[in-house]
């Protein structure tokens, strides 16, 4: 024990030193805006002595600075360009959407006055609130909405976020503040889809470097981006309403978990994402989203010609894994077992009649023997550092498979190559671990991507499930749509297209300097944070 204690002692000394440096830095950064602000807010500096005397006693007119530690850096800050959660986390503070979600996850009006009105089968009408302007002075009006819609669905622009808009084919201006969203058919999901359409300024967004210098209309505006290090935002002083408690924020990108945690322990980082359950007791505060947001699954190649094409093998791979142990031990109880489907119980399309494949290694061995695959060898592609314990979960799955005689060679490529393997429609991996999130909270997104043989990541031969998913897209009757999705879930379960593992919430750790509560959608709204 003494060796450990000495080690911890050494760390504590280092921590203290770092904390001392950190405080200095924080002090200088908070002071800087205060002094530059002083001449502007205090009246005309008629005498040179006036600003210096008024600046000194001014009690921080700007509010506090905080630092948020993220694990990954977005490839771009263009809110329409990349499908990365880190991008959403930052930009949800910078940009408006027609429809937003409140902290509980319910739809609420955003830049629009309401959730939208269906005018006919192919049109939803929105009225934009008056008086919103982008940080560069452009007005957020019907033109800006039309521009934003046309930009994101432009095939030449080729953004992965286009899929979230599903049926949207265009937009037209009705008057200065009224706009029609046009769809290819009846689409009940338009209000939900609008939560994924960030509104961009027509002029500024045409610039080549919009991804490096985003201009939004939200409560915070973009300040700077040091590649590989941090993005800095500041509260927009002209934004209507009370000034938020946080005036300045730095999103630090720290891939290394230990470094991120050390930052929180040393008070250098106020809020970090993806805290390991083991470290709950080490940080001053922890938060977690009320429900699971990330679904951990292993996609199996069900297409003809694959080494796991036999459904019995895929069922065996499901029976072989103890999901209970993964949820309870590896994730210390924060994980919930997926119910034999990729959909979470609180997403539209969840099928309550499905059950997880129970842990039954003997049954798995039987099925493998029946299928003549007792010495199966497959490749298992995975990733590291993207989600909590992603690599460890993959190793655990491979370990369980090994116990029933299946050898899985784990291959962890660079992240970009991992994505290429995931979406490679021609050469599907035998098995690939996927941490899936669905910010639409509707089965449409998950099923079109993973249960449709033509989806980005589906590994099955075409079946009638494809037709059900297509039909669901334009089914306005919610009960009928639910039935379609539940049938798709059943087909996937019977075909054992995936090994469904667990669903985990987003977990955060932080110092006691901030007051905050986690949102249902896992985003971090800076306006919700109070600094003491």
């Amino acid at each position, binding site marked *: *024990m003494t*060796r*450990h204690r000495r*080690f*911890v002692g050494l*760390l504590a000394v280092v921590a203290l030193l770092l904390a001392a440096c950190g405080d200095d830095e924080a002090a200088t950064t908070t002071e800087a805006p205060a002094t530059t602000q002083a001449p502007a807010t205090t009246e005309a500096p008629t005498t040179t002595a006036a600003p210096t005397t008024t600046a000194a006693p001014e009690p921080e007119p700007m509010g506090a600075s905080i630092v948020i530690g993220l694990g990954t850096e977005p490839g771009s800050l263009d809110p329409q360009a990349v499908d990365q959660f880190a991008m959403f986390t930052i930009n949800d503070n910078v940009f408006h959407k027609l429809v937003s979600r409140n902290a509980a996850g319910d739809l609420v009006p955003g830049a629009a006055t309401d959730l939208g009105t269906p005018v006919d089968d192919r049109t939803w009408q929105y009225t934009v609130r008056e008086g919103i302007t982008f940080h560069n002075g452009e007005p957020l009006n019907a033109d800006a909405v039309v521009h934003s819609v046309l930009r994101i669905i432009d095939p030449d622009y080729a953004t992965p976020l286009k899929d979230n808009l599903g049926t949207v084919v265009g937009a037209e201006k009705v008057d200065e503040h009224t706009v029609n969203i046009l769809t290819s058919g009846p689409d009940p999901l338009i209000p939900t889809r609008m939560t994924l359409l960030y509104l961009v300024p027509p002029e500024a967004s045409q610039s080549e470097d919009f991804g490096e210098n985003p201009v939004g209309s939200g409560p915070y505006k973009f300040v700077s981006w040091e590649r590989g290090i941090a993005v800095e935002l500041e509260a927009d002083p002209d934004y209507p309403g009370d000034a938020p408690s946080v005036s300045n924020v730095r999103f630090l990108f720290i891939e*290394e*978990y*230990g470094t991120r*945690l*050390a930052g929180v*322990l040393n008070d250098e980082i106020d809020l970090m994402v993806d805290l*390991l359950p*083991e*470290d709950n007791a*080490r940080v001053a505060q922890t938060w977690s989203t009320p429900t699971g947001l990330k679904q951990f699954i292993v996609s199996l190649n069900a297409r003809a010609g694959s080494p796991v094409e036999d459904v019995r093998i895929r069922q065996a791979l499901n029976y072989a894994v*103890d999901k209970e*142990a*993964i949820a309870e*031990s*590896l994730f210390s109880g924060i994980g919930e077992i997926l119910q034999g489907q990729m959909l979470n119980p609180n997403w539209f399309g969840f099928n309550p009649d499905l059950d997880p494949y129970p842990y039954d290694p003997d049954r798995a061995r039987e099925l493998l023997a029946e299928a003549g695959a007792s010495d199966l060898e497959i490749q298992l592609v995975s990733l590291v550092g993207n989600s909590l*314990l992603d690599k*460890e979960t993959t*190793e*655990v799955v*491979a*370990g*369980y498979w*090994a116990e029933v005689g299946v050898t899985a060679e*784990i291959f*962890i490529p660079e992240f970009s190559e991992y994505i290429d393997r995931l979406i490679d429609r021609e050469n599907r991996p035998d098995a690939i671990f996927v941490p899936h999130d669905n910010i639409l909270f509707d089965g449409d997104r998950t099923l079109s991507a993973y249960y449709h043989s033509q989806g980005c990541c589906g590994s099955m031969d075409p079946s009638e499930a494809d037709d059900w998913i297509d039909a669901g897209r334009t089914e306005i009757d919610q009960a009928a749509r639910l039935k379609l999705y539940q049938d798709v879930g059943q087909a996937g379960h019977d075909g054992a297209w995936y090994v469904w593992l667990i669903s985990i919430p987003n977990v955060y750790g932080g110092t006691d300097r901030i007051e905050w509560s986690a949102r249902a959608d896992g985003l971090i709204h800076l306006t919700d944070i109070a600094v003491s």
Partner: protein
Amino acid sequence: MSAVSSGSRSERRRWAGWLMRIVRDPTALFGVLVLALLVSAALFAPIIAPLDPNKQDLAARLLPPFYAEGGSSAHLLGTDQLGRDVLSRIVHGARISLTIPLVSVTLAGIFGTAVGLLAGYRGGKTDAFIMRIVDTLFSFPGLLLALTILAVVGPSFWTLAIVLSLRIWMVFARMTRGLVLSAREDEYVEAAELVGASPVRIMIRHIAPNLTAPLLTLAVLESAHVILSEAALSFLGLGIQPPETSWGLDVAIGRQYVFSAPWLIIFPGLAIAVAVLGINLLAGWLRVAADPQESAKRFAAAADAPSAWSG
């Protein structure tokens, strides 16, 4: 070297003499014992290791070592994040962590010595040409070169061993060349040349045996470097790949848990440190013992010491 195998009395006496010299030198003895321990751990890993190093047990994950609260004798050095036994992983890790240096140094030693012999014996343009290549390769940052090759070719045991030998063969070439240059001037080489021995015969029969001791010392010393390089590469994710284990890999995996489970990096790190220390102690002793002049100095110093006290 084939003469060593003959069981003549003088040979046996020579070996006994070496053994006695090791036993009398406590640092060398320590180095040898540590290495013997690690090598036997590697050789008999399946017998020594209490458990299968890849056997997961999620219910018993992150258990502390036996001396800490909550630790038990079932897992002497605790368990890792997947419930695998740390001691068993270190014992099995010794296999890779010690085989890689053996293979790399053997490859580098054979190639480097051959090149050095050629350069030193032929001299002239051959020498200049070879040694400039060696100088060029020396100026490359070794680890960067290794990382680049591994990133392109993909990591495996053999690529790792070869890449690491690419980093060190120049040391052998340089040293051999220097030794050959001085040996060439010796009378016995001249004598061999005069009786008409072929250059190959002179290099192999007459010069090479005289290089054995210094090159052996170098080889031992370089093994320590290779252990550290393998650990570094595995730590960076381009070395040994799971499910195989090595100490460097274990440190890499454990670093995430540095706060909650420090034993995951302490023990594999300790294994690396102890192995490198043992090798260095042995190499230091070997350098002295194999050099007659150094040995004589030591002997004189030892002989002087008591007289100084008495005087």
